[in-house]
């Protein structure tokens, strides 16, 4: 039995706790077909587009993109619609069901693409993606059933941040770019001992409580979490075991803060590294801009820091280290006014261009296009490290998606999230908990 449109619209209204959905939710057709060639706005006609963003005051990337595009296409005016970052997907879903979503929808977390694309809220932009430069990474994260629904403008990836001053105080050699996980773990323990001997309270390393800090590396370095027949999708998580053994060992030996202390004391990673409570920390490249600005404002201590590639399983991958990270991208509202579609597609093509990349790099954002020019722009900012390894670590790596796109990804992610908290809190041992998680995913028990 299919529900009529009016009742669907009423449900949408109910979700929005208002009747906003009734006016526009009852439209009779949904334009989902690719309109390349059929809808072409003339280049000079003024077009106004709306675009979603969050925390506009502290997240300048949206305005930067809009301003940069104004120089390329002066006839296009883009107005930003602000959302709360913590409930972004929830608010966007409400706006989508109520027909109030903006023309250009920023995809904050790639894992929501599947839900939005299969719900016909996003438009197929495969033609835009086909025209992107080869230097753009992350577009695959927005592919659903062979079609593309988003264009990445930003691609963060995880790195090892280290505090050079603390390494020097402990008399330990800084990372050389060839670290395996074993080197990382032994250095963390070594640092903890020697820092204590030097009268410092800092620990060797800090692992934040998120499941990404461990599972992200395990998935990426296993290498096939996007494969529908791979162990991530089919439920066989024994490959995470060594990562958990190592993290628990570091936690039990006191070389990193215990998970329980992070969650009960609500520790923030920014304060842990910024206030020199740890000599090392694995974190995404978004932290670069935060650290630079916090050192300038005084929220973080002033110390010399650097970046090194993420530790690897063995030496075979150190030349192109494997790490992970999800892109941030833009999609187009499936209900966009057809006369604005071409302008929206042109903007999407722009956000992944080198011009946009340089503009983003100028404000400390890691763009989806990597090149020497982009790296140079990022490192030109005052407060950035100047050593060669930091630059190499920033530019050279193979970044795997943290969350592949697929119907079951949200549920798999929830199952693994629960396993992570159970193991790291010491409530369950890793072997049995990973076996339970594997079984749940195999049985689609959710």
């Amino acid at each position: 039995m299919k529900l009529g449109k009016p009742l669907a619209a009423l449900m949408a209204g109910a979700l929005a706790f208002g009747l906003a959905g009734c006016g526009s939710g009852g439209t009779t057709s949904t334009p989902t077909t690719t309109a390349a060639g059929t809808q072409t706005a003339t280049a000079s006609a003024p077009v106004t587009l709306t675009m979603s963003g969050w925390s506009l005051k502290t997240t300048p990337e949206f305005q930067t993109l809009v301003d940069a595009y104004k120089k390329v296409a002066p006839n296009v005016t883009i107005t930003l619609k602000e959302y709360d970052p913590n409930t972004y997907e929830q608010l966007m879903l409400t706006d989508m069901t109520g027909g109030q979503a903006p023309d250009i929808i920023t995809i904050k977390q790639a894992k929501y693409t599947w839900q939005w694309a299969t719900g016909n809220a996003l438009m197929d932009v495969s033609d835009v993606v086909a025209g992107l430069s080869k230097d753009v990474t992350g577009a695959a994260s927005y592919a659903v059933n062979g079609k593309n629904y988003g264009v990445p403008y930003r691609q963060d990836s995880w790195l090892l941040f280290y505090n050079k001053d603390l390494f020097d105080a402990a008399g330990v050699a800084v990372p050389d770019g060839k670290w395996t996980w074993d080197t990382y773990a032994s250095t963390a323990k070594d640092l903890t001992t020697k820092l204590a001997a030097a009268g410092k309270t800092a620990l060797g390393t800090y692992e934040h409580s998120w499941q990404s800090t461990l599972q992200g590396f395990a998935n990426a370095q296993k290498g096939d979490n996007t494969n529908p027949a791979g162990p991530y999708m089919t439920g066989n998580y024994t490959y995470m075991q060594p990562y958990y053994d190592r993290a628990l060992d570091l936690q039990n030996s006191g070389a990193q803060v215990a998970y329980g202390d992070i969650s009960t004391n609500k520790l923030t990673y920014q304060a842990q590294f910024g206030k020199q409570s740890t000599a090392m920390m694995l974190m995404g490249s978004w932290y670069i801009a935060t650290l630079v600005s916090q050192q300038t404002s005084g929220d973080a201590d002033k110390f010399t820091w650097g970046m090194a590639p993420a530790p690897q399983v063995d030496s075979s991958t150190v030349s192109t280290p494997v790490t992970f990270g999800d892109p941030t991208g833009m999609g187009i509202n499936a209900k966009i006014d057809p006369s604005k579609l071409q302008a929206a597609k042109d903007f999407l093509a722009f956000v992944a261009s080198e011009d946009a990349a340089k503009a983003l790099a100028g404000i400390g954002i890691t763009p989806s296009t990597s090149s020497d020019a982009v790296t140079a722009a990022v490192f030109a900012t005052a407060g950035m490290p100047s050593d060669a390894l930091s630059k190499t670590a920033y530019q050279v790596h193979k970044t795997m998606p943290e969350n592949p796109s697929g119907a079951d990804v949200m549920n798999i992610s929830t199952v693994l999230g629960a396993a992570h908290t159970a193991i790291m809190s010491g409530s369950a041992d890793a072997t049995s908990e990973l076996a339970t998680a594997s079984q749940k995913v195999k049985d689609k028990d959710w």
Partner: protein
Amino acid sequence: MSTTTPAPVRQTAHRAHKLRRRNTALGWSFIAPNFIGFAVITLVPIILMFYMAFTDWNALGTPHWTGLANFQRLARNSTFRAAVAQTFYYAIPHIILTGVIALALAILLNQKIRGVAFFRAAAFFPYITSIVAIAIVWNLLFSPKYGPVNQFLTWIGVAHPPGWTVSSTWAMPALIIVGTWREMGYYMILFLAGLQTIPRELYEAAKVDGASGWRRFLHITWPGLRPTTFFVTVMLAIQSFKVFDLIQVMTEGGPGTSTYVISFFIFQKSIGVSSNAPGTGEFGYASAASLILFFICLTFTILQFIVNQQSDLRKPRWTPVPLALGLVAFALAVASFASGYSLGLGYLGYLALFVVCFGFLMIHVRILRRRQQ
């Protein structure tokens, strides 16, 4: 004589009718603003939920009728079964503890003691404090290594103090403690209001007759509080089964799934935004779970109504007592079994809990009946 007065009778009837109509209209005008708001933002979504529970609606697409598929999926889902068990595990001790402590506090603070207003305010304070602030403070207190709770326990000689919110065994007891601490003040105020309505003369007469404090409580306070107790248990039960905010801010359902309750499951299957439980947008499936929660709350409320009616001496006893008791016992037995099974606590602990809980419900029936004889 009597046949000559039809006109005034008709007039009076007419006037009474008019008055009644005017009163009704006045009543409606008072209710309307609230009712319209309630209908638009609560009633309509609730009615839609009944439909959505039988569809595969995901908020964006068109819903398709899937019959009982959502409920079959819920029955197979180990996380949902655990969530049901854990909802009872939270609710039953929480109802008992909060009820008993609130009543004890109310009796204590109903006496003429110095600074009574201060103590009443102090007991009520947790209820009006922001839940987020509460979560941060209690998480700090419960911190396994540095928290004052465990430091105190170590000081008094507990060798291995519990891990509280970071232990899957102790997270739920920790939540029950915080929940009780937070809500006892509110129910204390309700009990205090109830205590004020009991005539002083009854206590004075009982004292003259030489009744002890306990007997005065049993034969005057407890029966006198019956309407309040009924209201408190109904509200407390509904609130406990629906618990969500406390869990979201304290543990986010963790560690593992040890503090997943039905509301949290619904949140996670719909709009969830927490890092460990991203919302999967399955609104049809979430509605089915909501419907089950609704029926759990409804069952408990109906049972309380039945028990309350049984103990009301003024009304004829029409309700079959064995049926009511049987239903309560059945609901509790299922809950005890499910909780015991999924939490691995063994049957003895739950048998004890079952007895205490069942006893709590029965006490006021017995007392009132004895008074009647």
